[in-house]
């Protein structure tokens, strides 16, 4: 609460001109969001909707991951576990209780990931930095082995032919175009939750913890609770992405749980720009497009090599990412 008050006070003290400029920037931002939404609404007329849905699912996944890495400074190497649990639980619920609305199936998957996120978080926030990454990776591998052996996941085959079902008992999601607008709504919801989190006083505290943890502690913030909440939100939204993906492809498989997936989401975020709002969306777009482009071409078998090379290049030369770089250019020139 305190930080909110300070912000309002300082706003009142600012001269008229500064305030007007800020309001203008705010308006520009709103127009930008509206334009993007407009593009997203007409996009399925030009591009295959299933591809767009895949893109949106991975974009949400990367945004959720970025909430943790970009704003709380925590590198999780285990986010595949949340993507997969969301997918498996949704797949299981929709296959076994066919009368249930799709929205309830997705809700179940999201909740399952949130609970798993709580468990992971409680363990992982006990250590920092590199240990945090190793612990999340090891826990995700534990979950992977459980999925391999558990009876309800279908082992190597995964859950196939998951029915898409009906939304609120009204809309038949079997139609790709209907499903697309539903997936878009899910993405906008997830994106809005992340925006709200980042710009809330809670989000400000998260950034403070990222920048200087001992100072945040000395200011009296319960650092562990803040980190844990960020972890749970991130896990839940990742689960939401995984659940939605299962509905789109009617499939939940071990690929989602493999540590390669945890690596991919890091790459998307890094490539797009860590800690930027649209970076993960752009990064996910580039990586997903690249993957589907490569898998149809002669370079299909080199996908991992190419992803690895992008990884190395990003870390060595391009740590700001695409969106970070564009923002830097914009700041310099306007």
């Amino acid at each position, binding site marked *: 609460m305190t930080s909110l008050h300070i912000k309002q006070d300082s706003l009142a003290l600012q001269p008229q001109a500064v305030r007007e400029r800020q309001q203008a920037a705010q308006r520009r931002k709103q127009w930008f969001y509206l334009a993007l939404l407009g593009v997203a609404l007409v996009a399925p007329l030009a591009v295959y909707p299933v591809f767009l849905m895949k893109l949106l699912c991975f974009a949400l996944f990367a945004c959720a991951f970025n909430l943790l890495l970009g704003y709380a400074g925590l590198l999780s190497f285990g986010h595949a576990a949340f993507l997969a649990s969301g997918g498996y639980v949704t797949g299981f619920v929709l296959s076994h209780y066919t009368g249930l609305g799709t929205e309830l199936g997705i809700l179940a998957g999201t909740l399952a990931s949130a609970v798993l996120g709580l468990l992971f978080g409680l363990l992982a926030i006990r250590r920092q930095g590199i240990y945090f990454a190793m612990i999340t990776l090891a826990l995700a*591998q534990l979950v992977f082995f459980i999925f391999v052996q558990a009876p309800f996941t279908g082992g190597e085959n995964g859950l196939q032919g998951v029915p898409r079902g009906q939304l609120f008992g009204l809309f038949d999601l079997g139609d790709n175009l209907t499903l697309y607008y539903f997936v878009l709504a899910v993405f906008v919801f997830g994106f809005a939750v992340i925006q709200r989190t980042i710009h809330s006083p809670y989000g400000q505290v998260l950034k403070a913890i990222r920048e200087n943890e001992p100072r945040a502690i000395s200011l009296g913030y319960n650092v562990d609770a803040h980190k844990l909440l960020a972890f749970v939100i991130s896990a839940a939204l990742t689960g939401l992405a995984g659940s939605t993906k299962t509905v789109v492809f009617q499939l939940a498989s071990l690929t989602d749980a493999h540590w390669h997936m945890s690596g991919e989401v890091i790459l998307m975020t890094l490539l797009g720009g860590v800690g930027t709002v649209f970076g993960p969306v752009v990064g996910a777009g580039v990586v997903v497009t690249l993957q589907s482009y490569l898998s149809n071409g002669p370079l299909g078998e080199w996908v991992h090599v190419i992803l690895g090379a992008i990884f190395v290049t*990003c870390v060595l030369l391009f740590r700001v990412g695409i969106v970070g770089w564009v923002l830097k250019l914009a700041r310099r020139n306007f």
Partner: protein
Amino acid sequence: MTMVFGIPLSVLLGQLLLGLINGAFYALLSLGLAIIFGLLRIINFAHGAQYMLGAFVAVLGLNYLGVNYWVALMLAPLLVGALGVLIERGLLRRIAGEDHLYGLLLTFGLALIVEGCFVKLFGVSGLSYPMPELLKGGYNLGFMFLPTYRAWVVVAALVVCLATWYMIERTRLGSYLRAGTENPKLMQAFGINVPLLITLTYGYGAALAAFAGVLAAPIYSVTPTMGANLLIVVFAVVVIGGMGSIMGAIVTGLAMGLIEGLTKVIYPEAANTIVFLVMVLVLLMRPAGLFGKEA
């Protein structure tokens, strides 16, 4: 037949021996990770790839150049160590001042590249490496059969681990290394060539991984992904032991191997996951790890 907990003694001892061998690999790999982490402060995600490269040097050397096992045991660490030196000089040094997480990401990218190339070249099915003549056969100990090669793996790994421990804890070079871990700037002020020390450390860590890879070649199937899956378990071992001490890494590695072997006898379903479960328990009770120093 003697029974322990309702399990035949020979089965129990056999699994414990297999566990001890896995533990020897955990020890060698986590030792390498701990040494690299001590000085460079990064987690070497390419460690699994370097282990795999060691095994492939042995296989390819034998198939194409007729290099025998004993030469490979020397050659592979040298080659992979040299590659490690190049990686440190060419890539890791450039990001030395950045957040340490970038080191993890960079080496992760390298691992993806190397493993991807090997999958493309050799497929995923795996190659086999013949047992060296000298180490064929085994001893009948009366209560169980002890294959010579398996005994050799444990002995060789232990000797290398203890030699490394001795070098770090008891020699002058080791004292530089330990001092560099504590305070590299002060070391440099005293006229020690810290950048060279860092390069050699990374090279040595990579060489240890390659040595483990050659040891593994005759008993495990040599595949491009053999290192990646092992590495995640080794990460868990590192979290359990904490990276504060060299001896801690060795002891934890062996202990985890034994626990895994024991689990295979008592409750086989959990054999894959037991190390991770132990990690969870350790995190709950002693977050810094069994031998860890920092909180």
